[in-house]
């Protein structure tokens, strides 16, 4: 027996996803057989896969005895690291939205439709979004409206508009509302100027009014009588596409996005740091690296030259945005930039807190880079160094970590307006705090600064 459907795989009766011996499979149920045949038979599936829009899969023999509902077993290409929409920057959510609309357009042209438009159906391979739910396609009945239109507005349009016109941090609302931002909430939060855009007025404000007005309609005929031609649905998709394309958010003026510009080392010191980090990574030879506090991903790129996959985390939406744009421009498939507040990482959300698992349960990297990070945890957030050590030791076996002392200009800024209640925040204190969990393999001062770079290995 396999371990049963994954915790997130329970809504759609068309099938489910399960793990068997570390490999991900998707069971297609008999009830979906006709739609699957249509998806493949119309050539839609291969067209989308060849264009890189839909995840590739192979039809395989079931790895374990299937249940009575079984029709087929698929083995989709693996996704290196599963991320969720509340961990994406504005640009990532926007690309995911445009991908979903493009797929709906292609589906309509093939006589099919997306029966859901959840942001969780999209994952990222580097800068490229890919649709992962092969069972989202359904043969379209003539005249049928787009069932997933409301879901698209909640999962994509509402958060994007809030991020673009109100505040980029409102993207985090997606972590509170697992089926997307309610449209009445978005309408209440948006500035009035949003309604000067006819598309936003219609898709959000008017949409929210209609939802409220018809919320208690018990007569199914009210909805059933509405008939939309394919052309009309194409217009609807084009309208959404235009609205999304017009949304912009430019990364500037936040805390860290300009960090490297006014840097702490000087050019020579920074080059030396890059070389040392590279040498440490060469010594570790990891396949996967997490770069915590990655800023715009300078060191993530050094890691990506030496390993398969890098997840590049930062707390600042502007840094993640810049990192993502660079990944897209370079056609990168290795670096996944994600938004992460290490002092409050993504928790488990959804049904039983298991549907969307916490971020640190979604993978274990071979190595972690923690550069110019420790002072933010220990001083800005008062986390004792022993806990930082324990936390990192739970997450990985190899660590490249930079200690930033109180004499450093960046730390002086952090201490400028508060009492120094950190008597143990010294290089000796740092080494003592990490000693129970970590064996130091290398330690060297970074030229041009008072900082020290360590390579450590977790004690068994």
């Amino acid at each position, binding site marked *: 027996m396999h371990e049963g459907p994954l915790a997130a795989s329970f809504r759609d009766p068309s099938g489910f996803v399960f793990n068997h011996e570390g490999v991900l499979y998707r069971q297609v149920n008999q009830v979906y057989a006709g739609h699957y045949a249509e998806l493949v038979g119309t050539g839609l599936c291969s067209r989308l896969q060849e264009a890189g829009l839909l995840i590739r899969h192979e039809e395989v023999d079931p790895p374990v005895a299937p249940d009575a509902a079984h029709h087929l077993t698929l083995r989709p290409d693996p996704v290196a690291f599963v991320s969720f929409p509340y961990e994406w920057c504005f640009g990532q959510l926007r690309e995911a939205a445009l991908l979903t609309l493009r797929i709906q357009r292609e589906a309509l042209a093939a006589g099919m439709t997306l029966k859901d438009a959840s942001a969780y159906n999209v994952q990222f391979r580097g800068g490229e979004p890919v649709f992962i739910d092969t069972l989202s396609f359904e043969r379209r009945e003539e005249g049928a409206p787009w069932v*997933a239109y409301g879901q698209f507005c909640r999962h994509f349009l509402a958060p994007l508009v809030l991020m673009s016109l109100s505040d980029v941090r409102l993207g985090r609302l997606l972590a509170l509302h697992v089926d997307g931002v309610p449209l009445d909430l978005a309408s209440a939060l948006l500035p009035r100027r949003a309604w000067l855009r006819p598309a936003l007025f219609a898709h959000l404000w008017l949409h929210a009014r209609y939802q409220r007005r018809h919320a208690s309609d018990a007569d199914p005929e009210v909805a059933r009588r509405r008939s939309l031609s394919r052309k009309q649905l194409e217009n609807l998709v084009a309208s959404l596409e235009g609205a999304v394309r017009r949304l912009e958010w430019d990364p500037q003026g936040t805390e860290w996005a300009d960090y490297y510009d006014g840097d702490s080392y000087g050019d020579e010191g920074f080059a030396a740091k890059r070389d040392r980090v590279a040498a440490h990574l060469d010594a570790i030879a990891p396949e996967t690296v997490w770069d915590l506090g990655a800023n715009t991903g300078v060191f993530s790129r050094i890691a990506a030259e030496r390993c398969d996959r890098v997840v590049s985390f930062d707390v600042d939406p502007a840094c993640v945005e810049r990192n993502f744009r660079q990944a897209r421009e370079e056609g990168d498939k290795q670096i996944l930039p994600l938004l992460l507040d290490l002092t409050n990482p993504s928790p488990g959300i959804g049904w039983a807190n298991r549907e969307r698992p916490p971020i640190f349960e979604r993978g274990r990297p071979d190595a972690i880079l923690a550069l110019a990070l420790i002072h933010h945890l220990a001083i800005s957030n008062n986390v004792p160094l022993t806990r930082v050590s324990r936390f990192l030791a739970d997450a990985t076996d190899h660590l490249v970590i930079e200690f930033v002392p109180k004499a450093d200009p960046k730390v002086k800024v952090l201490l400028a307006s508060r009492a120094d209640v950190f008597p143990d925040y010294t290089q000796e204190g740092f080494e003592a705090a990490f000693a129970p969990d970590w064996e130091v393999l290398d330690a060297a001062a970074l030229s041009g600064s008072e900082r020290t770079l360590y390579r450590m290995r977790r004690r068994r």
Partner: protein
Amino acid sequence: MFGVILYIDAGTGSIIIQGLIAAFAGAAVTARLYWSRIKRTFGRGATKPDEAEQDAPSDA
């Protein structure tokens, strides 16, 4: 063979509003198409009609 598997709630309000928007978007496409033809007739048409069609619905 084609069991309908609409497992999410489309929402009556969402169904009605999308019909209105789709109709309005269609009208906007037509209006733009005619407008670009008029402009072309008077020799000011820098926009090709198919481009107008691409742009139009987003104003719905």
